[in-house]
């Protein structure tokens, strides 16, 4: 018989806490070992009941949920955190990623998603609401929050940027190939890639994009 996923539910709203606990407890593979009404109580309960996964609300009075998570993790490094919040807030996402949370779900998500997140977290996998995961950026050393206003232009390689500039200026692909000393087929490949990366498949729109990004003059 496989071990149940030991879950602790932390939410300051008693009704929400209870309904989450009941929904989770109703799952055959999940056991709700404790509930807590704030982050401070969560530290104590985590020490007492050793949950595998802590499902924790972010917007609670008292100490910060993230501070509590750090404290709990010091004593129990393997515990996984899935955060719940009514708000998809940059600051919250940043902190959740910093402590390598296994989930950050908006409270708009249906209960099934929360249950799935708990199951995934028990396997070490993550589950983020789409509005959260869209904003996560893969960095050289890990992940971070997308900087506001970051552009898809960053996805392009230097060669692709160069070719985008020429394309936007109205230069035919053959002429670009001649100018850069590469084959027309290679230019074609770069064009395909840059159009895919930018999700722009129209030369007029490409030109507009290049002007907006300052790659070429109008």
């Amino acid at each position, binding site marked *: 018989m496989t071990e149940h996923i030991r879950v602790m539910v932390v939410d300051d709203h008693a009704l929400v806490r209870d309904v989450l606990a009941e*929904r989770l407890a109703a799952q055959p593979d999940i056991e709700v070992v404790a509930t807590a009404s704030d982050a401070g109580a969560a530290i104590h309960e985590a020490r007492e009941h050793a949950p595998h996964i802590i499902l924790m609300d972010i917007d609670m009075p008292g100490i910060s949920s993230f501070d509590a998570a750090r404290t709990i993790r010091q004593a129990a490094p393997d515990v996984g955190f899935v955060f719940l919040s009514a708000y998809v807030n940059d600051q919250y996402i940043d902190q959740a990623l910093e402590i390598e949370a296994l989930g950050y779900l908006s409270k708009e998500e249906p209960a099934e998603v929360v249950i799935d997140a708990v199951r995934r977290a028990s396997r070490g996998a993550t589950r983020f609401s789409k509005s959260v995961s869209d904003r996560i950026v893969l960095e050289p050393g890990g992940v971070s929050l997308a900087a506001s206003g970051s552009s898809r232009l*960053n*996805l392009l390689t230097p*060669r692709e940027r160069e070719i985008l500039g020429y394309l936007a200026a109205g230069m035919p692909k053959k002429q670009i190939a001649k100018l850069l000393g590469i084959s027309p087929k290679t230019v074609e490949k770069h064009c395909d890639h840059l159009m895919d*990366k930018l*999700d722009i498949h129209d030369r007029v729109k490409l030109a507009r994009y290049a002007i907006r990004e300052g790659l070429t003059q109008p």
Partner: protein
Amino acid sequence: MNRDQTNPDSGLTLPLARPGTWILIASVLTFGLFGLLTYHVNVTLRVGSELARAYLQGEALRDLVVEREQQLAFAATMLVATGDQEWLGRYESVERNLIASLDAAIGAPQPGYDTGALTDTRDAVTDLRRNQSEAIQLAAAGQVPEALALLSGSDQGVLADRFEDASGRFIEAYRVHLQAQLVGHRRHELRSLGVGMAIVGICVLMWLALARRVRRRSAAFEQELVEKSRLEAELLQAQKMEAVGRLASGIAHDFSNLITAIRGFATLARERLPPEHPARQSLARVEEAADQAQGVTRGLLTFSRKSATEKKPIELVAQIQEDARWFRRVLPGTIRLNLDPGSQPKVWVFGDRGQLQQVLLNLVVNARDAMPDGGEVTIKLEAEADPDHDHGRQLALSVADTGIGMDPAVLQRAIEPFFTTKDTEHGTGLGLSVVHGIVKDHGGMLRIDSHPGEGTVVTLTLPIVPAPAATDEVVAEEGIEVSGSGSVFLAQGHAYVRDILVTALEDAGFSVSPVTSCPAFRSLYRDGELCADLVVLDYDLPGGCGVECLEKIREYGYLGPAIILTHELSPEMEQGLDADVMLLRKPVRVGDLRRLAVALTRSRSGGEEAP
């Protein structure tokens, strides 16, 4: 630059621009001028009296000499005529005094004395005396008639004329001298007066400049006060709006939690009932209602979200249509809200969504307050040519009501901060002021047309911007879903990043096989029964480079597309890679990676035409 020393017109720095310095200098010059004038009046009076005294002295000398010469002639005549020796004594006394007076004047002449004329006078006197001596001697010798003839003869007359002429020349020369001194003094005084007038002129100019400067400063100060009041008012309004937003957000949050509980317990209850139980359907209805209520609270949370001002391209038609339901909530049942989005299906402006919402909400609330007995509010969007730019276009967004309208006096003050026609409980007088500030900040204009009894139309114009080409944020925010299918082999050394990528790709509909290293990836492909539709590799993998790893599985027969995530990127890295390999330099948004994965697999499967 010190603002106090800046000429606001020219922007130049004036060395004496402080009003205090100006007042001091002008005062010193004024007092100096009075001092100078007083001094010159004194000098003029003194010089005048000195010249008059000197002239009187000169005249007295001349009169004395003439009088004594006459006394001398009289004494000589009387002596000759009477032979009385008393006249001789008088004659000698007068003669001594006369000679002494002339010698004193010649020996120590006053400035301006014509010593030549004085000498001539004395010579004439000497000759007269010699003639008189001869007459006296003749009289003493008994020749009285001859003596008298000599005294009254023509020689004596010539000598008397010489005397008169010389004494006259003396006094005339002295008069001319004194007159020249007076003229010189007058010239000097005129010059002084000129200098004085110049100083007066400078003082007047300085006072005028000072007065102008004070006026300008006062005007600037008043303007600053008005601006400060406006900013304070806007801040107050912004704080109020923020507080209202927080309140709404807090209520929505709590309400959302309650609905979550209702929905959850309803689901639990439904699941615990046997399938045929009649209450199951009722509980399902409870769940539906809870979902709808959740949608309402979600909208309220979005509407009252707290965020810093951030301008970006916004599609206003959709936004207004979305916000219209919130505008309806502030309107009573007696007021109908009409929405006329115009002929353009989409209109993009560059602005802050929250601020534009606030603008419209303020205008709708104003319209409501102008229609206590009900009426219609019409929000209308219209694209038109931008008069300031040849080829530009602008959006005219108007909010029209059928309310009481405004008279010209009220209309003129409508956008002034704190100006309100409502009572203190219903208006702060900030609504239109805030609207005006926001519209200005968005590069737009505000126009108000109103007539008493005919309603009000507030029109704001905003520059239209081109629709963004696949703008990242917009795509993400609009929640355009991308979904793919197939199998993805993922090689990523960083556990947390790998977990996140797995989730993201799975969410997009892929089946993901994650590995941690290059050897594991090779064996996964070689040994696996599954065929990958896409491989996603990190360039720096434990146990090998991502490119080498890819080359290896190409040898095993993998012909599909590949995405390689890399930290550094150079043209050399691109060389030698086949067309199906896409290099992505970190940082890469997870959303972008997911979208590219879908695009590449669709392209391969022919689900979408390759460009």
